[in-house]
């Protein structure tokens, strides 16, 4: 009985995870810029992987393999966002302009565009002590 449940659960987890992983990969193609692709990667690297690996862990039952898989999942959940964050920050610092900022600005007119640009500048500044525009919050 528990075997069957475990098999079903693991199968679902693996399949759903694989679906998310694949969807993320499709996002790699479909998303228009780096930052939007970042979200697609997120789908693959966290949700997809975590689900597949948990499915495998369920499949493995109470074995060392399951323990290792759990550690692998924890590691990925811990280091993944840190990596994504580092990548995004580095890209911004290197001058890669997020599509969102531009599009958003275009809709709100030139004034907003200037503000957005300042936001980016502030976010990418190496020493962000200087006062940052608070407009983003109020908006």
């Amino acid at each position: 009985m528990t075997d069957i449940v475990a098999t079903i659960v693991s199968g679902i987890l693996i399949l759903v995870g694989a679906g998310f992983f694949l969807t993320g990969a499709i996002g790699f193609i479909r998303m228009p810029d780096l930052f939007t692709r970042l979200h697609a990667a997120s789908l693959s690297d966290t949700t997809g992987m975590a689900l597949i690996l948990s499915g495998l862990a369920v499949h493995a039952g109470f074995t060392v393999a399951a323990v290792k898989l759990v550690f692998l999942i924890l590691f990925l959940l811990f280091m993944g966002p840190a990596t994504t964050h580092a990548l995004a920050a580095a890209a911004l610092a290197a001058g890669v302009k997020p599509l969102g900022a531009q599009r958003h600005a275009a809709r709100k007119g030139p004034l907003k565009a200037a503000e957005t640009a300042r936001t980016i500048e502030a976010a990418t500044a190496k020493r962000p002590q200087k006062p940052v525009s608070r407009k983003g919050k109020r908006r």
Partner: protein
Amino acid sequence: MRRDIVLRVAAKFIMAPLMLFALYVQFHGDYGPGGGFQAGVIAAAGVILYALINGLAAAQRLVSMALVERLIPAGVLIYAAVGLVSMALGGNFLDYNPLAHDPVHGQEWGVFLVEAGVFLTVFSSMIAIYYAFASRRAS
């Protein structure tokens, strides 16, 4: 990068489990693929990660350059010494059987020591390579 609190905390958090995992691989080399080489790579990767995020100076406080430069030959020396001892005890080079009264224990000891040598050399070589590059780019 290291000013970034996300990465700093992540790196600090991951260090201890990583080192433990490295040594786990080292000590369980007999039971599966692995051993000194992977363990060395993992441990070195941990130190390098630490250096990447917390700075070269911080990493070198952890593992100094002088230590690294001596660990490389020391690892090889362990390897060679095991071989020499087995020769002195009447076996062929790297024949572990004569290392203990019981060939099985001889094998255990031999494998362990040789893997330890491999670990040290791989670990320190990787770190040395990284230090060499990092210090050059910083200068």
